[in-house]
């Protein structure tokens, strides 16, 4: 699926967050949205699923104009978009099985899962490299990294065609970060979904993204391949790159 923003503007009170944002993703690509805190990265994601409406401009998923849909019509669009939150946000009182199954239907405690649902739950866990031995465990019994994977499996359960990641590696140590990055690469390759990753982690962007879009003051500062971003001379991008480059030299 492809996504297209056309001249999208959004202000909150006096503050303009998106100032005529236009860009397009390619089907199956991993696009990183990078920028400083408060620059409108998450606001951009929320526009895609209609959680925030633009003041002006249009947003398309394939040929469908999302901005023209009412709340009811947005339902099917939201089901196509899997949102992966920064924190796992699992239900602690439910088993891993029920947490992943929650992505299929919300009345998980009303009746047992059917054989087809159970198969789907196990398949989604497998996609995030978790085995069936944890199906009956509860989130507090799992490491934080495993919780993040269970949360991702829940997002994958309904079969989204677009994955939206909101700061998936923020607050993680370098090893856990690499594990999440590898998952994003795997999912993109195996499921051929289009992924948008909101982040301020330049190192991850350079190693995972097909293209990187850098936002600044509500506009696109740069949009290009990791190699093109690496070569950019824009001061903000050099600032974001400086520690990554310093570490590469040290290593």
């Amino acid at each position, binding site marked *: 699926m492809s996504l297209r923003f056309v001249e999208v503007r959004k202000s909150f009170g006096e503050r303009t967050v998106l100032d005529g944002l236009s860009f397009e993703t390619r089907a199956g690509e991993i696009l990183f949205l990078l920028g400083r805190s408060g620059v409108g990265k998450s606001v951009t994601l929320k526009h895609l699923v209609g959680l925030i409406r633009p003041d002006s401009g249009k947003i398309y998923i394939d040929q469908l104009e999302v901005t023209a849909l009412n709340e009811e019509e947005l339902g099917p669009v939201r089901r196509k978009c899997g949102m992966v939150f920064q924190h796992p946000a699992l239900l602690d009182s439910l088993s891993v099985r029920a947490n992943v199954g929650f992505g299929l239907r919300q009345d998980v405690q009303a009746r047992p899962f059917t054989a087809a649902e159970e198969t789907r739950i196990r398949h989604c866990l497998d996609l995030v490299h978790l085995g069936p031995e944890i199906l009956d465990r509860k989130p507090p019994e799992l490491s934080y*990294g495993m919780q993040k994977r269970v949360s991702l499996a829940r997002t994958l359960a309904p079969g989204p065609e677009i994955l939206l990641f909101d700061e998936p590696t923020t607050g993680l140590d370098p090893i856990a970060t690499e594990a999440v990055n590898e998952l994003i690469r795997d999912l993109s390759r195996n499921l051929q979904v289009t992924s948008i990753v909101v982040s301020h982690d330049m190192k991850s962007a350079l190693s995972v993204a097909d293209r990187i879009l850098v936002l600044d003051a509500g506009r696109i500062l740069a949009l290009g391949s990791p190699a093109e971003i690496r070569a950019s001379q824009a001061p903000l991008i050099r600032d974001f790159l400086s520690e990554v480059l310093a570490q590469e030299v*040290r290593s």
Partner: protein
Amino acid sequence: MIRVNSLGHRFSPDSPWIYQGIDFQLKQGECLAILGPSGSGKTVLLKSLAGLILPAEGSVKIETQDLGMLFQKNALFDSMTALENLLFPLREKKSFSIAEAKERSLEMLKSVGLEASAHLFPDELSGGMQKRLGLARAWMMEPEVLFYDEPTAGLDPVTSRSIAALMRQRARDLGTTSIVVTNEVARALQLGDSVALLAAGRLTSPLSPDAFSQSQDESIRQFIEGRLVGPLTRTRENGALE
């Protein structure tokens, strides 16, 4: 200023040790940065050092009782504005007049770039602003020793670097001794006079930032490079707290 001997902790006599055999000394005005994977026990260690958790074995000696702490989640008062959050410790602990306390608090807000947000409540501030307010509150009392738990987690790299620069500047101006736990390698190298890695229940010997980043220790290398395969990953899968 701080002397730590054979420090170890576990939550009960039947539970596994989180860490053991930790020894180090810190002189007045120095900063030790402790890196480590999630769940390696960094926060437990910091709380043990600050006296918030009684260690299961070993000792921590600090030459002062004038301690301050920045908590990972800031622990701001939700029902107070940014300004009131700073006024609170001053009015509780020190005998300033209201006018004087207010002046000092506004000055502090300015130094962390929050002067325009004095009247806002914590939930009206972004994550980065809340972090800066947490720092400002920790700094208000000008403690001799400061413990920082993940002071820059979740901030973009530019903000993160500028906050760390502010931390260093203040420590230098006031001669504050500090211990910082973080999982950001670049920040530890920027902040610490010495840097150590807490992993697999042990703290490596503190090294200068240069020596740390060039260390050939396998765990340190794996952590710095963020490799999935190595000694730390095995330990984590073997049931270390995460």
